[in-house]
């Protein structure tokens, strides 16, 4: 592990990557450039391309999952690792390059200030509004609406994976993170367990390469699974 330059808060950026050989290097290099005070780890979710080899060449720790667990299981691996290594703040940045590392300080600031436990980078709060397909927008809105029904809180970008967690949220997520489509469901889980969630505006880029884990044909399945996840997690017992 690299030594930390910031004494107060140990920050770890976790990059989940599944077949991101085209983007992963740039993602890591731009984080190193824009946020050098953080450690970076890559979770290679049993990629079938050479993502693993590229990740190894970048001089940062790489966790290679022996089987593909999906984004939820991959992130949870990172959470467990970060808990074990005693990090205070974890930032999740997707391996496909759509999250601009320039916004990492904005994500981390509310946690440093003690205003939030989980910070979500929202595409929809940003002036330079995110352009997306109509269907995707409908899907995200629907998830946000369901979450607001379950929790009385409206999260604009419920599917955003650009997030920061404080130590308590991190410890919780290491045990209770949803495995399959974790982003919307985890919002409900966090809120129900009285974590404070704050959204900050970010700009997101189109994917640099690779295939989104949400393919158009799977969109309906994605929304349906998320809805079930949101509804079910709103009935689950409080675990904190």
């Amino acid at each position, binding site marked *: *592990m690299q030594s930390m330059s910031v004494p107060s808060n140990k920050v770890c950026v976790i990059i989940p990557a599944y077949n991101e050989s085209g983007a992963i290097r740039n993602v890591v290099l731009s984080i190193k450039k824009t946020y050098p005070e953080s450690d970076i780890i890559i*979770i290679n979710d049993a990629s079938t391309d050479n993502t693993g080899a590229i990740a190894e060449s970048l*001089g*940062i*720790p*790489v*966790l*290679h*999952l*022996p*089987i593909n*667990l999906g984004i939820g*299981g991959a992130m*949870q*691996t990172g959470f*467990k*690792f970060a808990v*074990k290594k005693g990090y205070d703040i974890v930032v999740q940045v997707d391996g496909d390059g759509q999250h601009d590392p320039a916004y990492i300080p904005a994500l981390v600031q509310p946690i440093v200030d003690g205003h939030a436990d989980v910070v979500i980078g929202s595409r929809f709060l940003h002036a330079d509004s995110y352009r997306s397909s109509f269907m995707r927008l409908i899907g995200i809105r629907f998830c946000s609406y369901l979450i607001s029904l379950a929790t009385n809180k409206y999260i604009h970008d419920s599917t955003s994976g650009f997030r920061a967690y404080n130590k308590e949220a991190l410890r919780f997520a290491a045990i209770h993170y949803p*495995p399959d489509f974790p982003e919307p469901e985890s919002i409900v889980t966090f809120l129900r367990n009285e974590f404070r969630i704050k959204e900050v505006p970010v700009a997101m880029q189109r994917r640099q390469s690779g295939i989104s884990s949400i393919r158009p044909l799977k969109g309906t399945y994605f929304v349906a699974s998320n809805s079930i996840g949101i509804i079910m997690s709103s009935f689950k017992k409080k675990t904190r």
Partner: protein
Amino acid sequence: MTSIAYLMNGSIPSRLQYIAVILSFSILLFILTLIRQGKLKEGYSLIWFIIALATVIFSVFARILDSFANVVGIDYAPAALFLILVGGLFLLAIHSSMLFTAYDKRIRELAQDHAILKAEVQAVAKPQL
């Protein structure tokens, strides 16, 4: 003795009853064999065992099947046998899904621990990381 014979003599046609008795006993024997050979873990086979036993009881003692059919409002008693079987299979399917879920979690945790330990071992082997 006569009361047992009475219990065995229900409204189900006798040929159908013979077939049902033979089939349900075969299933029960088959499940017991699998448990004995260690091909079916006892805990997981409990529901199978209950289904097979229920089928045996209801096909041998047809009068009990009649009473059951009467209680739930089925006119044709052999159809009640299907209801019992479908109910049992339904429970079994749910139980299987519960097992898959538990295995899914175990495998996930194993994979995660594997990845973390492997990275730690590598960090020891290559201290520049």
